[in-house]
């Protein structure tokens, strides 16, 4: 009843009121989503930060919601008494090499997949995804037998090859989508004007796949940084990367404070990278490259 009365006295037409309410509803919805997302992502990270700052003199135990006092002691401890510095070095030494190697190996394949019509393309596209799809631990365990017989396990080169294997699928998929997006007209025009293969590569293909290349590099890089299964089986104990160090703090001897430090060391560069490259990293790259099998 009241609704009707209000409508009569109010000169604003009904559809505008509904529009306004809808708008208000969307703003509320956005605020709600924002809050939930902040909690969803923020709380776990804040908890890790708090755990990494716990003062061993004043332990943080059950009824307290926050650590009673904070100190940098855990950070000093981890850098002093664990192999984290070396693991960081190993991780960030392997990743760039693996990225470059996977780019070089992916480029010709992606070119064929993106620009040529060959029989069996669908199957090849599925094969490319195998390293991501296949259960990591099984592949790692039995690939280690192969690596051992070639003398590749417990070696830096072996680890690079393993990380390359994990990066290639992203690289090929993303580059394939980029190659597909190049208009044939441009290539035809260049050919008409007498461009050689070299010129075509230098002036058409490479510049036009650059955004995709960047996305692919980021995916391959993060894949390498977080690669655990293969490194754990093939690399330890000779080589430790950040994930395997973290695992050692979380397995048989669970040390929450040390694990927090390592977890933060591991994810901070990744998050920073995400925000820097956000504008290049259009979501459609991942979706376009993995949205079909």
């Amino acid at each position, binding site marked *: 009843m009241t609704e009707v009365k209000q409508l009569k006295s109010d000169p604003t037409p009904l559809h505008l009121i509904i529009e306004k309410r809808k708008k208000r509803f*969307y703003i509320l*919805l*956005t605020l709600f*989503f924002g809050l939930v*997302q902040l909690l*969803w*992502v923020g*709380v*776990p990270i804040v*908890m890790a930060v708090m755990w990494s700052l716990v003062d061993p003199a004043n332990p943080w*135990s059950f*009824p307290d*919601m926050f650590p009673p006092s904070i100190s940098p002691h855990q950070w000093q401890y981890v850098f002093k008494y664990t192999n984290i510095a070396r693991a960081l070095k190993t991780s960030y030494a392997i990743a760039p090499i693996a990225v470059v190697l996977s780019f070089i*190996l*992916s*480029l*010709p394949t*992606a*070119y*064929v997949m993106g620009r040529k019509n*060959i*029989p069996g393309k669908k199957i*090849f596209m599925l*094969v490319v995804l195998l390293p*991501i*799809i*296949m*259960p*990591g*631990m*099984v*592949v790692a*365990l*039995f*690939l280690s*037998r*192969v690596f051992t017989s070639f003398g590749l396990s417990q070696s830096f080169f072996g680890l690079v090859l393993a990380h390359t*294997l994990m990066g*290639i699928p992203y690289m090929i998929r993303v580059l394939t989508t980029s190659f597909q997006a190049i208009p044939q007209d441009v290539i035809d025009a260049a050919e008409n004007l007498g461009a050689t293969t070299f010129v075509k590569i230098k002036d058409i293909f490479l510049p036009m796949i650059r955004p995709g290349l960047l996305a692919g590099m980021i995916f391959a890089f993060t894949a390498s940084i977080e690669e*655990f*299964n293969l490194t754990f089986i093939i690399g330890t104990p000779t080589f430790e990367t950040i*994930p395997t160090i973290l*695992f050692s703090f*979380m*397995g048989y001897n669970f040390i929450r404070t040390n694990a*927090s430090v390592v*977890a933060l060391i591991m*994810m901070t560069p*990744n*998050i920073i990278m*995400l*925000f820097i490259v956000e504008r290049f990293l259009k*979501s*459609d790259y*991942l*979706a376009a490259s*993995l*949205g*079909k*099998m």
Partner: protein
Amino acid sequence: MKKNKGLLGSYLLLIPGVGFILLFIGSSIFITVAQSFGLFSITGHSSLTLENWKTILSMQESIDSLLFSLKMGVLSSIGTIVVAFPIALYFRKGGVGKGMLGSIIKIPLFIPALVAAFLIVNLLSFHGLINSLLLALRIIKEPLRMLNDRFGWGIVLIQIWKNLPFVLLIVMASIASIRDDTIDAAKNLGAGYWSILLRIYIPLAMPGILVSMILMFIKAFGDFPIFSVAGPVYPTSLSVRMHLMATLHQEWDKAAVIGVIIFVTTFIVIWLYSRLGELVEGDES
């Protein structure tokens, strides 16, 4: 003749990428299968035998592990899509601050699985944040056991947290390809919210939903690190069981049997997906 030559060249260009993958993954699959039948054994002599299969399949632990891994795969993939779909719908509409929210929600994508497991463990543990909050609010009297629990809720939650952005990106792309005209037409013809959701959004986004569910299932099914951090003592997931068998008991041949079981399940799921995909696409035309 010239065409054939071009084709050969194309295949040659595939070798660095596809060949590299086939060399490593193929040899790994080959070794797994061969060892499960007792060939290429590294301990003792090699001979073709079904003994390992018999032993593994007759163990109750193996069946429990298989069921547990299947359960984790199914629950994780359903859970993630249920959380991701409404968010994807919300992002389609857009609104204030969408870009910022979009970046925030993508953060877990760049957080390694192990770190994600650790972050969520902090919340779920016996005296973790969630239990503390619930106790403080007097909703529960005793802390809940959410970690290393027999059912595996801890694992499911970690999988959802870590893989939400990944699924979200795929589902968002397939929702974005739905044209506004279609929605407007349905509205014009008097379709309500529910029928738009059930008859337009979900069917048209089905390819994306299927792919993300399949990928999620495979990830959660074969997972090793998340289980070993947050999983129950018994039953263990197949991967963890296989790893223990190979490294702790040095029974590589038996571990290979479990490996083959994981591979076969993965391939069956992918095959089912491709059949389903054909069905979905067939409906469209």
